[in-house]
């Protein structure tokens, strides 16, 4: 049996950019002195006139990207998520106000930058991005999906955010056949009756692992991949929650914003309308805390970003569900 190659979502992005370099002459890349980290070195080598080095100046980079979009280029504006959009939100906001066709690439999001510590670990980027009008927010769950979503991002007209990680992951295809990716549509990766897990990013495969374990003890688990945070697939949330009445949201992000709060809002708004019965909810994410330095695996373990925590939460949420149905 050949060994499965582990790849990070940034690798899929780099491959997609090479492909776009060949296929779409309007595509340009901007980077703030991080072309290796963002996997843009090959693009830079192959398309030097379309790679725009911006130096360590992320605010200028964002507005330069806006200027390129005004000339109808398709700029991919890349840096670490803590700076992009963390540092250049004002510039991004003005570009988004114009509805410009910019693609913002936030690298090393979540714990991707383990050793560098909290200053380099973004857990608020999805909150920032999903609060901007007209923005499309994408979070690939593996390298293949990063490739696919990058290509799709180049095809939609308008501002778009692509959240990338650095942690090497197994391909989702290892867990079974995958539905086609379409922006704005959650992927149902596994169907089940007792519990729904709504996951994004690297938590998707943890959700699948958890589902396999929970099935061993007789539980039927549904797993949805929210690779699009905005526009959010509310129908998928409602449909699955109505069936299972128990939901775990798992995202490598702050839980007081981002996917967790968006799901909670969707559920609360649907109660008494599409949703007739109460739904129990638990979530996994950073809760009112910054990260710290360590290797990625230790951090993911300490802050509970793994399938074991999903199993723990499954017990909690199913107890809640039981109490609600009494």
């Amino acid at each position, binding site marked *: 049996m050949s060994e499965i190659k582990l790849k990070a979502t940034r690798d899929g992005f780099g491959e997609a950019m090479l492909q776009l370099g060949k296929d779409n002459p309007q595509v340009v890349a901007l980077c703030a002195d991080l072309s290796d980290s963002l996997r843009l070195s090959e693009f830079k080598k192959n398309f030097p006139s379309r790679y725009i080095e911006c130096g360590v*100046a992320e*605010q*200028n980079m964002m507005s330069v990207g806006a200027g*390129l979009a*005004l000339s109808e*280029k398709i*700029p991919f504006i890349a840096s670490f998520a803590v700076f992009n959009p963390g540092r250049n939100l004002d510039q991004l906001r*003005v*570009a988004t106000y*114009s509805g410009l066709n910019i693609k913002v690439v936030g690298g090393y999001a979540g714990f991707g930058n383990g050793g560098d510590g909290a200053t380099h670990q973004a857990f608020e980027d999805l909150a920032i991005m999903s609060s901007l009008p007209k923005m499309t927010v994408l979070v690939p769950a593996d390298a293949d999906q990063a490739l696919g979503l990058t290509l799709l991002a180049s095809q939609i007209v308008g501002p778009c955010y692509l959240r990338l990680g650095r942690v090497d992951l197994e391909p989702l295809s290892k867990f079974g056949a995958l539905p086609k990716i379409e922006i704005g549509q959650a992927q149902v990766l596994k169907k089940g009756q007792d519990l729904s897990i709504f996951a994004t990013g690297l938590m998707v495969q943890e959700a699948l692992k958890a589902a396999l374990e929970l099935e061993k003890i007789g539980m039927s688990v549904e797993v949805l991949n929210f690779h699009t945070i905005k526009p959010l697939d509310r129908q998928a949330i409602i449909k699955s929650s109505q069936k299972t009445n128990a939901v775990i949201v798992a995202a490598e992000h702050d839980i007081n914003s981002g996917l967790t709060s968006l799901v909670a809002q969707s559920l609360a708004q649907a109660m008494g309308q599409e949703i007739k019965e109460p739904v129990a909810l638990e979530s996994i994410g950073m809760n009112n805390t910054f990260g710290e330095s360590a290797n990625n695996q230790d951090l993911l373990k300490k802050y509970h970003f793994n399938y074991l925590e999903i199993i723990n939460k499954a017990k909690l949420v199913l107890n809640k569900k039981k109490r609600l149905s009494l």
Partner: protein
Amino acid sequence: MPADYKSVSKAAWQIRQDILKMIYHAQSGHPGGSLGMTDVFAALFVGKLLRYDPKRPTWDKRDYLFLSNGHISPVLYATLAKVGYFPKEELLTFRQLNSRLQGHPHFTFNPKHRLPGVENSSGPLGQGLSQAAGMAIALKMDQKKNKVFCLMSDGEQQEGQIWEAYQFIIHHKLNNLIGIIDYNQIQISGVTKDVMSLGNLKLKLMSFGFKVLEMDAHDFENIFQKIEQAKLEKQNTIILAHSIPGKGVSFMEKDYRWHGRVPSESEYQQAIKELAIKEKNLV
């Protein structure tokens, strides 16, 4: 005054009256910088220092004017209307509900909401120069000859992003971009050197690698000469436009309090009167 400049100057005095009408009607807006930059705008558009065609606002051979200090939008809008981008009546929708004339300029590709002649969204200071640099690098990539002008304020030079942009422009040799700084020495809460001194702005720019031209922003012969010179320069060029904020209205001139203040009814009447007299007495 030579005949060429006279018609531009006359247009400038009319634009100034339109600026005050808009601000007075909206009961908000920024007269100081708008009146101070009117002669430069009139020279660019009425005097055709810019290549443009109001009948074809998206003409691919046009020069681009990026306004970075978006709060002087009244001078941009009044000038665009003056040269026929849109009907002059629309000026009175400035800062009103459902208007294309937002307090700070709004660019959109959506033809329903797009105000012809506006090339960029601005307002938060310090961004326009970078946007202009993005346009300039795109034009270079496509081997196009269009020029990009970016109009900034001096107070805006306090933003760090401006200096990131200067660095970028020099590094990427974007000599198709001409920066014009409204060097009027005031900002919202006082005289610039008291609020946050810019030091020797000219020397700073030169040390970044720019050629710096100085221009009297109220002398048409000088405006035409300096902007034409900048267009021919191979070196990256910034023009320091020495202007008088509130130019043309006796009680507004050089007074920072008129950066963003609306005149009372009597002040408004007096200001319009003064401007109309200047228009009429033009020699």
